[in-house]
């Protein structure tokens, strides 16, 4: 049966009677031809919409970005492109705002991603126990994921407010002076990272939980027979067992970190938002991209920042690879 269906799926003509009437023969032929066309062509027709939309609205803009970055283009006159070769890149290289934004993107990226993934790992471990109300805890951990960047950033802006914010009030209770969360560099970056961590920890925890549930139980049994403690089991069975998911979340978080935009923008509350604070103390590359294009009207330079972001992303993955290789060599 399998062979006959394979043939049918592959569109091979079923063997028919060779001596049929002429009219019957042509209509049968036509039917077979249509069938063949359908079987051969339909798959491509079914996947075409995805590729057409992706090519038009993602791939083409991505490639065209590099072309634009070699020109001067103003926001008001988008159709006037003046060729400047690599001037935009040279200027960007000499621009302290770029290095500042790059540094901020990296530091915010690290202090938002590392605690986020570690906490997600812990929460996933807890959720993996047999327990009551497990669905409630899972949904609760996803509530921040349902909150838009806008709403989340607005609440946290208020919680981190200098004069009446809840955090400073709490710090005051234990005798710590109020922190100026917006104006000072490191507090601002910590507050912005808090928003990111809040929104994505539960989501990552569920990804880890799904992976943990796929680890065969006998691995744990073997480990506990060998006298491994719970912590050792976690380190030597659970973590290696979900390694590919960990890599996946690191990749996604790294991409997210290089693109960071909404949290610092809204945290800066309007006028200071795009510049990332009065002294650019938390301006990310995403904000710089927007500032160049839509505040300074320099679309060419904006495209240059976009390419720089892409290069940062590529470098981040190369660095991760290198670290991984070095670690496996030393161990």
């Amino acid at each position, binding site marked *: 049966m399998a062979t006959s269906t394979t043939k049918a799926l592959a569109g091979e003509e079923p063997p028919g009677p060779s001596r049929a009437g002429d009219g019957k023969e042509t209509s049968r032929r036509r039917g077979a031809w249509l069938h063949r066309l359908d079987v051969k062509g339909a798959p491509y027709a079914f996947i075409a919409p995805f590729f057409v939309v992706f090519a038009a609205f993602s791939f083409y803009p991505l490639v065209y970005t590099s072309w634009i970055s070699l020109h001067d283009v103003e926001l008001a006159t988008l159709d006037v492109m003046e060729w400047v070769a690599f001037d935009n890149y040279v200027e960007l290289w000499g621009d302290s705002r770029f290095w500042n934004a790059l540094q901020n993107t990296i530091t915010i990226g690290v202090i938002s991603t590392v605690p986020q993934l570690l906490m997600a790992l812990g929460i996933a471990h807890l959720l993996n126990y047999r327990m009551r109300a497990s669905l409630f805890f899972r949904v609760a951990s996803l509530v921040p994921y349902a909150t838009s960047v806008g709403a989340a950033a607005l609440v946290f802006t208020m919680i981190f407010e200098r004069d009446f914010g809840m955090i400073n009030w709490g710090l005051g209770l234990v005798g710590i002076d109020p922190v100026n969360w917006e104006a000072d560099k490191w507090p601002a970056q910590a507050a912005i990272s808090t928003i990111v961590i809040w929104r994505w920890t539960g989501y990552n925890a569920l990804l880890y939980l799904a992976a943990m549930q796929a680890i065969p139980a006998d691995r744990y049994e073997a480990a506990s027979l060998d006298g491994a403690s719970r912590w050792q089991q976690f380190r030597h069975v659970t973590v290696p067992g979900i390694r590919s998911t960990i890599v996946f979340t690191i990749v996604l978080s790294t991409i997210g970190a290089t693109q960071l935009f909404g949290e610092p923008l809204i945290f800066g509350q309007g006028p200071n938002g795009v510049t990332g604070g009065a002294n650019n103390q938390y301006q990310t590359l995403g904000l710089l991209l*927007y500032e160049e294009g839509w505040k300074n009207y320099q679309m060419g330079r904006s495209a240059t920042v976009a390419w720089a972001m892409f290069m940062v992303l590529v470098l981040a993955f190369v660095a991760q690879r290198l670290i991984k290789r070095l670690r496996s060599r030393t161990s």
Partner: protein
Amino acid sequence: MTTQSLPARTDAPARTEPEKPARGGRRLLRERAGRTHHAGPLAYILLVIMAILSIFPLYWTMVAASTDNTRVSQTPPPFLPGPNLFSNLARAWDEAAMGKAMINSTIVAGVIALSTVFFATLAGFAFAKLRFKGRNVLLMLVIGTMMVPPQLGVVPLFMMMSELGWSQQLPAVIFPTLVSAVGVFFMRQYLSEALPDELVEAGRVDGAHSLRIFWSIVLPVARPAMAVIFMITFVHAWNDFFWPFVVLDMTNPTVPVALTQLSAGYVRDQSLIMAGALLGTLPLLAMFIVFGRQIVSGIMAGAVKG
């Protein structure tokens, strides 16, 4: 309901071709027989803390949205709801363009979610059950597109939209996200498991053409996964920020765009801001309360991130 139908077709018929191990539906929510550790008190305490930290900012949004501006700015901050919730929500709806934003976001997220579901099912079916040259390469290409951050192409995209005359118009935010690679991949994984080859073959034997098979055989089977993709895409489209912020303005915003305007106002009315934030979150929150189980299982099954 989806928890039963989405995962675990351990009785699925043997496939005619070797399949890579699915990171999808099958292992979703399958309770491992050997998992004997029960949660101790400490685990419960930690999880309760986690739940409080997750929910508190939203709870406090509601508290702040239900008081007035002076009360929000006092120390200690309010922890219990006040009497002004509905009047503040009404003000946010009228004054802060939130009404228009809510309608726009419903249209945008609804259209994007519907089209993503449809095209993902179409392509997922082709990748899961049809044979064609280059299938694996094309599938790898789909997965590869997930790694492309959309922000990078924003300058040409903006130029394209102004050339098309779509600047500040909803089509500018709808068209670029009509499809989703994650959706395609998720549906492909799901249908590989859930749709028996025999069903497709039976359709062929009956002389049905591919579209007909898709319509009457694939769609009914795909329904649970379609629901999950719809909800997750809706959440992402509703919350999408960067591109709508770039291409739309305050005359015609989506919810996240309108929220930025709330905070940038010259007169900072904190309880109005919080009312807007709450209003913009309510539809998704309602969805999570009703369909929490399905969304959780969907995320666990597909590693879905738009």
